[in-house]
């Protein structure tokens, strides 16, 4: 049976994490010598998936799938293809579908996966635990497996080859969730999937000072975020709260401005590939977790940094 990759999408467009999921699934398919099938629901254009090794793409267009329901999605996925290993993103959507798949198929569910498997039989892989303060290696007890990949942990990897795109009709027991309204909570760049995140803390002294955070983020094509106290005070929305009780991230670069680095915040960002900390307190614990540090007044450092990056990009 094939390896199945599920494509996360939003308003008929493929999410960035889906390319990573396809890359991960292709790696497993190559390792195991099995075929790869990529399934997308209600997506307008799936051709970009081919760049990442998707040679067998199944498109499902069905009004029942307009409202997200984990049960309906899992049923639809199982109705169009059968696989031995299902790969999804560890997003709210992907992990919910993965849970339903695992129960319906009596498969082993492994979430928050950080790397490719060290063994295919038995399937053995590393996953996040303790909010990033630990990593655990686990082995699956069954041959049927559902994997959810932590965004930005494996990366999207282009692979040569062209494929076929087919359309299929899904069978479900019916969707019982109705969507009344949708509002975007991310800025221009989705926080959880962003390559670069610029984040502000209480050191920024007030919401009126977020302009320079947004300007730096715009310049770098980054998402914006904040520490928990900032969200609690109401300077920024909770949807931007990064940390142990907020969103956990693994961007290529995390820029922390005016954030001291409490253990709960570090837990949410310590999977970042590189961390830059800008803080005027030389004793800020965040410096110990950083790759680059600037000890100085954020209100002087950040505008100057913006100008220098602009000049370097010109």
């Amino acid at each position, binding site marked *: 049976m094939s390896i199945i990759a599920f494509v*996360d999408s*939003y308003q008929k467009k493929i999410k960035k994490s889906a390319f990573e999921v396809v890359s991960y699934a292709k790696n497993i398919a190559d390792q195991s010598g099995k075929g790869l099938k990529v399934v997308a629901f209600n997506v307008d254009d799936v051709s970009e998936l081919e760049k990442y090794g998707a040679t067998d793409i199944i498109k499902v267009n069905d009004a029942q799938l307009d409202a*997200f*329901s*984990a*049960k309906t999605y899992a049923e639809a996925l199982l109705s169009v293809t059968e696989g031995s290993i299902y790969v999804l993103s*560890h997003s*709210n*959507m992907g*992990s*919910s579908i993965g849970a*339903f798949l*695992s*129960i319906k198929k009596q*498969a082993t*569910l*492994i*979430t928050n996966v950080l790397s490719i498997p060290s063994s295919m039989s038995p399937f053995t892989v590393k996953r996040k*635990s*303790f909010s990033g303060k*630990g*990593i*655990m290696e686990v*082995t*699956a*007890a*069954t041959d049927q497996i559902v994997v*959810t990949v932590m965004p930005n942990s494996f990366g999207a990897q282009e692979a040569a080859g062209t494929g076929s795109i087919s359309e299929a009709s899904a069978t479900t027991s019916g969707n019982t*969730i*109705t*969507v*009344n309204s*949708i*509002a975007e*909570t991310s800025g221009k760049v989705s926080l*959880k999937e962003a390559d670069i995140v610029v984040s502000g803390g209480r050191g920024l002294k007030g919401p009126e000072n977020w302009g320079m955070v947004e300007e730096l983020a715009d310049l770098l094509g980054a998402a914006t975020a904040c520490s928990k106290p900032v969200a*609690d005070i109401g300077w920024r929305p909770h*949807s931007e709260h990064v940390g*142990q*009780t*907020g969103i*956990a991230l693994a961007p290529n*670069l995390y820029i922390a401005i005016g954030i001291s680095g409490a*253990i709960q915040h570090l837990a949410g960002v*310590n999977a970042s590939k*590189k961390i*830059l*900390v800008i803080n005027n307190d030389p004793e800020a614990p965040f*410096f110990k*977790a950083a*790759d*680059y540090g*600037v*000890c100085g*007044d954020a209100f002087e450092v950040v505008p100057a*940094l913006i100008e*220098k*990056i602009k000049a*370097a*990009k010109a």
Partner: protein
Amino acid sequence: MKILVCISSVPDTTSKINFTTDGKEFDKNGIQFIINPMDEFSLTKAIFLQASAGATVTVLGVGDASIEPVLRKALAIGANDAIRVNGTAIDSNFVAAQIAKVVKEGAYDLVLTGKESLDYNGGVIPAMVAAHTDYNFINACVGLEVDGTNVTADRDLDGSRESVSFTLPAVVAGQKGIVEEKDLKIPNMRGIMQARSKPLNVVEPTDASASLTVVGYEKPVAKSAVKMVSPDNLDELVTLLREDAQAF
């Protein structure tokens, strides 16, 4: 309305995490255990529904006797009674099977949980319980209103927020927003005294196998020493961002 709130007992968020020297187990020495913060938001919502809709609130935990202080705290916050499934929480498959059995036997209308526990971070038990019970399910709930059997809820869906409607019975996985942090219930002395006499029923686990075996634990690779850059020499930082971090 019968509400079941599933509680996980997790290390305090300020805990430094250690593993046994052979890397096979989590080292509990010196760790203070608390109600999983995301569960606490859902518990508080249940207590609000207890007051506004006359609901009964049962809290449920899967674990040995060491999790009882956490269940007693939930009783002190206002839950009517508690159930402890006397088993070791081996993996999400095992725990979800235990919760689903209690849900079916108790015919609960609404199952509230946290979106994720802060120890093993699976974030899948609520959906697994819904799959076992065939209840409606929404994840990452940041707003919940119940009117009879009709539910309206707000959920985070990875960059968007949706208002959705569905009917009970349902499993709802909550997080901050289902109630605000300032509204979290703190046990008072009266609640603590009452909790001592509230029922805490211990039931034996149903037969369910774990599907995962832990090979071992490790800590993330420690970062090398920070490269400090003078605020007067930001050109050096720009070079690092461009060439080392490949930020632009």
